[in-house]
């Protein structure tokens, strides 16, 4: 390993601009003559639009235009789509309701945009948006799946009778039913996975510009995948052909999934820029973010796990209902199906699994992938039911898990996935040692002497990253291929630019990707520039989500580096009159093995571009591209153990100890990987203890629509974490990487709830485990003690 190469704890190249206030986010863009956009949004969860009167708004200072949905439709702008086709078990396709970027006749959730104002300043736009008079006819609304599926429920989309989008299944129902029928023990749980708001700290934003002479659009936007955005905007929403549309995702302040999708606002801003003949900017405020950013999770599940007399799992039956909100967001259909039910085998050898998943429309904000996307929901089901089963069977929860671990690879599960490599017991041992598992009873007793209830909880998660290969996801309904591309340009002076289709919005690609180049070519990372986030610069790309940038994005770079290295070696061999097979790359130089002859990268690069003396028939230049499509998903896995202390008088929970032992395969920069885990853990602990959407059942209003009511984890809600890694190399990509971006959020919620239920002696606790819920259970736990 070089000082900057693979495995080095290198401080980030991109940090300087962020710590000095020189980051360039979408809201920092200003264009001449730019107008500001404010949207007119529905105050109702479900209503008919009777009339929109913009006359008063048009008279207000600075107002340029008020634009409506019927105009947008008349201009041929297409409806928003969900790009992953799911078929119900009866073979019928999912029932997708029409979603216009600006509603034309009906609104289906609070905050849905119905019109937009363009004005000279943002304040003027906001003032005028309030003056747009909309006549509403309020309709009955539903916010939960149970209500939406009930007979006589309000119908949300004409395309979807009964509000049931699809009724999907996976696995072997007969075998699973038989296993449960014949089991020595069956553990059954009912479980809710609470609805979350992603809340990246940078709100969404769009700056749209139209060049009438060139008939060319430019969009700066808060996107995790600008090329996909361009593809969708072009192919489905009819903004412009791809060569007439440039999408730039500059510095992006966090995404967590919520910035994968193309939202109505970006579509409307592009359309408006042409319509009003000036660049326009829209920046979401936080309230709009709560109402319109795709939410995450929101499952209700019943699960039954069957064991034989030897406590080995024989079957697992899962019934899940998922709330997709009022419209099908871009990848929403895949989340509760192929990103969820395919992980229900957990780390365990399960001979039979059957899962039935129903997805439902409600009058709530659309739901889509949020950090983990389906895998946190699966892990929560699996790791809660394993814990409950261990308690019911009177076994140590770790021993029950250990007994059922998959130990031989590859391992084909009954639900599509084929686990390629892992050592689950290694993670467990690491976590047990780090937390001093054996010392827990003493710590519990000590806490009791202080009047605190202490509990310990374990979670052994597995997840699937990369979301590839393309052929596989295509067969499962994906509308796109999920490979990645890269281009490596060696400049004539030997500096290197890497163009990648991955997008960094906090993950540190500018450093990690440069470390790969440093490792391969022996150059310093300062001579490497990573270019991303601009469809005019980067050839193509699928973007960053599903913890795929290392495993897929870097593998593409590795492939391109292979080609660069091969050509450079040919040139070096030619120049030094040596055999190509004798050339080795070392410390940024091309050396003839066994001699003192060498040429620097600069000399070889210069030779490639001057082209005065190249091998016969060789093209000049030193620039290579590659597309990389993996052979399988990757399977990060790990063991999390946490300890909590409850103040029984108030119900306040303190996370006093949290250990994470993860297997991410090969790690490029441990410092960055640890940071990814920390952040994921905070979101998972947030889900378990603090965060959750509350909708008013009658009005469909989102009660938790600001940081005043939606509890974001703060520094004093969290402990310092003990994070460590164990390593089995992923055989599915050239770098052996598994991915680390989502694990923390996937593995941690069940560890928390397992610890709390351990402390409280009851399983009846839902997320978020608020102080009041915990207090009530602590009172109940105390009552029998008092009676003794």
């Amino acid at each position, binding site marked *: 390993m070089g000082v900057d190469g693979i495995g080095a704890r290198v401080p980030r190249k991109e940090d300087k601009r962020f710590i000095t206030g020189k980051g360039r986010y979408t809201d920092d863009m200003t264009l001449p003559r730019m107008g500001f956009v404010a949207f007119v949004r529905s105050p109702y969860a479900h209503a008919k639009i009777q009339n929109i009167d913009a006359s008063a708004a048009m008279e207000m200072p600075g107002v340029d235009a008020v634009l409506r949905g019927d105009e947008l439709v008349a201009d041929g702008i297409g409806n928003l789509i969900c790009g992953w086709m799911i078929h119900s078990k009866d073979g019928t396709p999912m029932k997708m309701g029409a979603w216009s970027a600006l509603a034309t006749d009906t609104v289906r959730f609070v905050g849905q945009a119905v019109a937009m104002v363009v004005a000279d300043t943002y304040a003027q736009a*906001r003032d005028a948006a309030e003056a747009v008079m909309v006549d509403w006819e309020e309709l009955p609304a539903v916010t939960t799946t149970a209500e939406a599926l009930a007979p006589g429920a309000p119908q949300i989309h004409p395309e979807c009778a009964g509000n049931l989008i699809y009724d999907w299944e996976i696995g072997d129902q007969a075998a699973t039913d038989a296993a449960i029928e014949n089991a020595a023990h069956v553990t059954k749980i009912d479980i809710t996975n609470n609805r979350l708001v992603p809340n990246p700290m940078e709100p969404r934003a769009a700056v749209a510009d139209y060049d009438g002479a060139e008939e060319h659009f430019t969009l700066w936007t808060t996107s995790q995948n600008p090329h996909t955005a361009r593809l969708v905007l072009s192919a489905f929403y009819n903004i412009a052909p791809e060569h007439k549309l440039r999408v730039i995702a500059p510095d992006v302040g966090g995404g967590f999934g919520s910035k994968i999708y193309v939202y109505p606002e970006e579509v409307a801003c592009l359309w408006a820029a042409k319509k009003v003949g000036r660049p326009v900017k829209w920046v979401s405020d936080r309230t709009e973010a709560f109402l319109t950013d795709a939410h995450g999770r929101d499952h209700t599940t019943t699960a039954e796990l069957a064991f034989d007399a030897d406590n080995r799992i024989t079957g697992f039956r899962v019934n899940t209902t998922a709330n997709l909100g009022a419209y099908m967001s871009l990848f929403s259909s895949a989340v509760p199906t192929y990103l969820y039910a395919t992980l229900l085998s957990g780390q365990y050898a399960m001979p039979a699994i059957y899962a039935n998943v129903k997805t439902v429309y409600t009058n709530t904000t659309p739901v889509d992938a949020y950090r983990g996307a389906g895998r946190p929901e699966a892990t929560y089901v699996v790791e809660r039911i394993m814990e409950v089963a261990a308690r019911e069977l009177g076994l140590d929860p770790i021993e029950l898990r250990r007994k059922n671990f998959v130990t031989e690879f590859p391992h084909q599960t009954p639900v599509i996935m084929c686990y390629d490599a892992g050592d689950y017991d290694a993670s467990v041992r690491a976590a047990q040692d780090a937390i001093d598992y054996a010392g827990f009873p003493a710590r519990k007793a000590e806490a009791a002497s202080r009047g605190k209830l202490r509990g310990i909880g374990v979670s052994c998660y597995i997840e699937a990253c990369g979301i590839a290969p393309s052929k596989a996801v295509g067969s499962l309904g994906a509308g796109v291929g999920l490979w990645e591309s890269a281009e490596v340009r060696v400049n004539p002076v030997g500096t290197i630019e890497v163009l990648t289709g991955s997008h960094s919005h906090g993950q540190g690609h500018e450093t990690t990707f440069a470390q790969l180049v440093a490792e391969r070519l022996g150059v310093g990372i300062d001579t490497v520039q990573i270019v991303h986030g601009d469809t005019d610069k980067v050839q193509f790309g699928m973007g960053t989500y599903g913890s795929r940038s290392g495993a897929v994005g870097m593998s593409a770079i590795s492939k391109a580096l292979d080609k660069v290295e091969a050509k450079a070696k040919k040139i070096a061999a030619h120049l030094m009159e040596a055999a190509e097979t004798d050339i080795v790359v070392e410390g940024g130089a091309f050396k003839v093995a066994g001699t003192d002859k060498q040429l620097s990268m600069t000399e070889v690069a210069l030779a490639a571009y001057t082209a005065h003396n190249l091998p016969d028939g060789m093209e000049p230049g030193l620039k290579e591209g590659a597309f990389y499509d993996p052979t399988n998903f990757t399977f990060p896995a790990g063991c999390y153990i946490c300890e909590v202390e409850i103040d029984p008088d108030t119900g*306040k929970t303190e996370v006093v100890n949290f250990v994470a032992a993860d297997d991410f395969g090969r790690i490029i920069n441990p410092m960055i990987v640890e940071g990814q885990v920390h952040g994921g853990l905070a979101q998972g602990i947030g889900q378990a203890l603090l965060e959750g959407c509350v909708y008013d059942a009658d009005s469909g209003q989102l009660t938790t629509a600001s940081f005043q*009511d939606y*509890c974001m984890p703060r520094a004093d809600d969290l402990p310092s974490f003990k994070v460590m890694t164990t390593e089995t190399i992923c055989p599915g990509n050239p770098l052996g990487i598994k991915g680390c971006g989502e694990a923390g959020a996937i593995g941690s919620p069940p560890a928390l709830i397992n610890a709390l239920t351990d402390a409280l002696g009851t399983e009846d606790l839902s997320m978020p485990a608020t102080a*009041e819920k915990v207090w009530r259970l602590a009172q109940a736990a105390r009552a029998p003690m008092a009676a003794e």
Partner: protein
Amino acid sequence: MYATNYHRAGSVDEAAGLLAGNDEAKVLAGGQTLIPTMKQRLAAPTDVVDISRIEALRGIEKSGDAYVIKAGTRHADVAGDAGLKADIPGLAALAGKIGDPHVRHRGTIGGSIANNDPAADYPAGMLALGATIVTNKREIAADEFFAGLFETALEEDEIVTAVRVPVPAKSAYSKFPNPASRYAMAGVFVAKFADGSVRVAATGAGADGVFRIPEMESALASNWSPEAVAGIAVDASGLLGDIHGSAEYRANLVTVMAKRAVAAA
């Protein structure tokens, strides 16, 4: 935020003059509640009268058996005042628990009590300490000043200029914050005076804002110990219940916070 006219007052009289006859004008002190409310378009004053630069409204002085804290004194200054920390530690501690460091650098004691948010901390301190609210027109006992949710005895052009806080023998404030907003879900201030009398006030929990708890006061007067209040529960029917906590839970918190405040005093 809706459009508004900004005025910087050089004196209390000038501020009162700007407010007089203008129902739609508001006093801007630290602005830590008013500005967020205006940003959310939940308040729309045509005019804001900034009193935060009036030097005469700044400062903390000991005067006999009481402290006079001028209305424009920032929370951070109350929290850090050596005299208050020694003589009325509960009040200094309370100020140190308001909002966050940035809010405490701007927010003022006068602004907080004039706003009388039912989840604000200062009203509990003022009520339990039996403070006197001094305005540009008169002096008002805390018992008369706080008049319900966001309601006070202040008239339209009346401006809080100071509070006069008697020095108690013991004081403490215990707060259970709302995990999201960090306002009080229940905050209880206890004060014991030289004559043996006790006052207890709770914020964050009352459906009508800050309130005193006479049962706790008499129990503590005869037995100043956490145990004395452990069995006293406030009636949940008069408490707030919302998505963060039911009235029953808040009733429990009031008792627990009272116990902890007494223990800390």
